């Protein structure tokens, strides 16, 4: 069943891409470009942590967030691209019933197909779906590490300030959501946006 889910996501992305490309051929073509967004900032875990109260947890919801996004920017309103990065959803320390310490960290690496559109000269919105590679690291009575693949999505809005012809400095507010595990973070990033290829 899981295989089907990823198959349909891929199929949807391909179908959209082909439809978009076909539409593009009918008009006189403008400049195409590939734009890289390199960002770093902070994330705040906003969904219900679900950490059991009986563990007396000390939950840390703030974490660092980095991302790398490459968008294909055609002469159309809508752009398409991919995003990855590294983020921590949450971590918490706890004590068991006899006072032994423990710690759990949940990290994620998203791999998302994204769509974007400029809503004004400097504001852009982004939305995408894909998968999150989640990792639980547990340090309690020994160390354990476990991985899970979760379907997920993101949405963001960014503001770009031009630094040069092909270089922008941006700020972005984004929501990253691993839907299957109901983990979601609100992130704020600074971005360097560079149009690195034009044709």
């Amino acid at each position, binding site marked *: 069943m899981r295989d089907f889910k990823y198959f349909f996501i891929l199929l949807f992305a391909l179908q959209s891409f082909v439809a978009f490309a076909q539409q593009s051929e009918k008009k006189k073509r403008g400049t195409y470009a590939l734009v890289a967004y390199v960002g770093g900032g902070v994330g705040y875990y906003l969904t*219900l*942590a*679900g*950490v*059991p109260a009986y*563990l007396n947890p000390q939950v840390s919801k703030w974490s660092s967030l980095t991302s790398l996004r490459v968008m294909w920017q055609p002469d159309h*309103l*809508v752009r398409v691209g991919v995003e990855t990065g590294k983020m921590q*959803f*949450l*971590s*918490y320390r*706890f004590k*068991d*019933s006899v006072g*032994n310490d*423990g710690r*759990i*960290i*949940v990290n994620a690496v998203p791999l998302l197909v994204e769509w974007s*559109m400029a*809503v004004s000269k400097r504001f852009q*919105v982004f*939305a995408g779906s894909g998968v999150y590679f*989640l*990792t*639980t690291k*547990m340090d*309690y*009575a*020994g160390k*354990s*590490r*476990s*991985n*899970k693949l979760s379907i997920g*999505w993101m*949405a963001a809005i960014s503001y770009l300030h031009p630094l040069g012809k092909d270089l922008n400095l941006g700020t972005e507010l984004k*929501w990253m959501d691993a839907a299957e*595990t*109901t983990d979601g973070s609100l992130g704020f990033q600074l971005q360097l946006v560079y149009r690195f290829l034009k044709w």
Partner: protein
Amino acid sequence: MRIYFLLIMIISMGSCKRDFDAPVPDTSWELFDAAPAGILPHGVMKKMEGVYTITKGTETFGPLAVLKWSYTKKGNDTIYNVSFFSETDIAYFICEAKKHDDYILVNGYWRKLSGTETGRVRLTISAASGADHLFSSNPNTAANDVIISGVYGSGENVPDIPLEFAYARPHYQAMPFEIIAHRGGGRNADLLPASENSVEMILLAASLGATGVEIDVRMTKDEVPILYHDESLNERLVQKNGMLGPIKNFTYQQLNATIKLKRGGKIPTLQEGLQTILYNTPLRYVWIDVKYDGPLDKVRALQEQFMQAAAAMGKPLEITIGIPDEDVYNNFLQLPGYQNIPSLVELEPEKATAANARIWAPMFTKGLQNDEVAAIQAQGRRAFVWTVDGANNVRKFMYEGKFNGILSNQPSIVAYYYYARL
């Protein structure tokens, strides 16, 4: 275009799902909880068992109900339960019964397993309505004239709708039959008041009509057999706590300290599960469904230990190692003396024969298979079918099939059709 794009994003972000639940209503009843009310002797409960005509309340529960008693032991306390099972919407009642002066009080709740309907129920058997006969020291006194009457309600409402049961006939018992509750008693999806594969669910199973349970076994990182169905930790089975991925990646201590099951309780070890079945319930059969690919020696050791303990207590208890696929089958064949180990094979009947399994257990989708069942029974083995749900399916397999047992998520409807058959 821009507006549509933003609209889609807003709709996506605002999407939500509806949560269903069927919480057990508060069953406090001043009269029942009052100090003079005493525990009902075992013999009285046994005499109460039978098939009852529903004379009031038929609009909700149909024309007939089966009354069955069971018990659970918690510490030094034994709680005696009186359960009613009816066909309509797979309704059941779970009640406690107490003696109060010369009459019997029955207090509890009802639930329809086909939905989330539930409510309280308060019943009485007066001296004139048969309590005298039930209290009689003569063990042969029947419950022929017993009338159980009272009220039921919906949800947390004070019960005020008339309900009455009149004794009709004794249980059918001619052909022994196993009523096996799936995942220790029921699935999380059925919104029972305990988590699937938990100790609490096992304690509930007999009051749902089960004579046995199927439990799912997996191994932890440090090779402790535990009761858990899925390969991974997920929010269907456990409360969210940041632990993700295959359960075999964590040690038992790590799971035990941090995991809380979806509907309460902790992940039990197989040992805890078997201990509960043996010492705290009247259950007589266990189907250990092996869900991992690996050596079975630890499962076998526990099976042997608890079957010996049961024999020493004089309690009938059969524990079979369930073999659902080829991997587990091959692992089973590696056990020394496997042909003498009680087992249940879900594969072809020939494999059940080759492993000398006590039970062959095909999936219900393969149909009644009366010829195959008869052939396996001719070898001195039994045949159970899984997992049969819904009144129509259960009735078909019970009355048209030749199986010796049914595994179901709804043991109460299996119990109804078994005990009510003529």
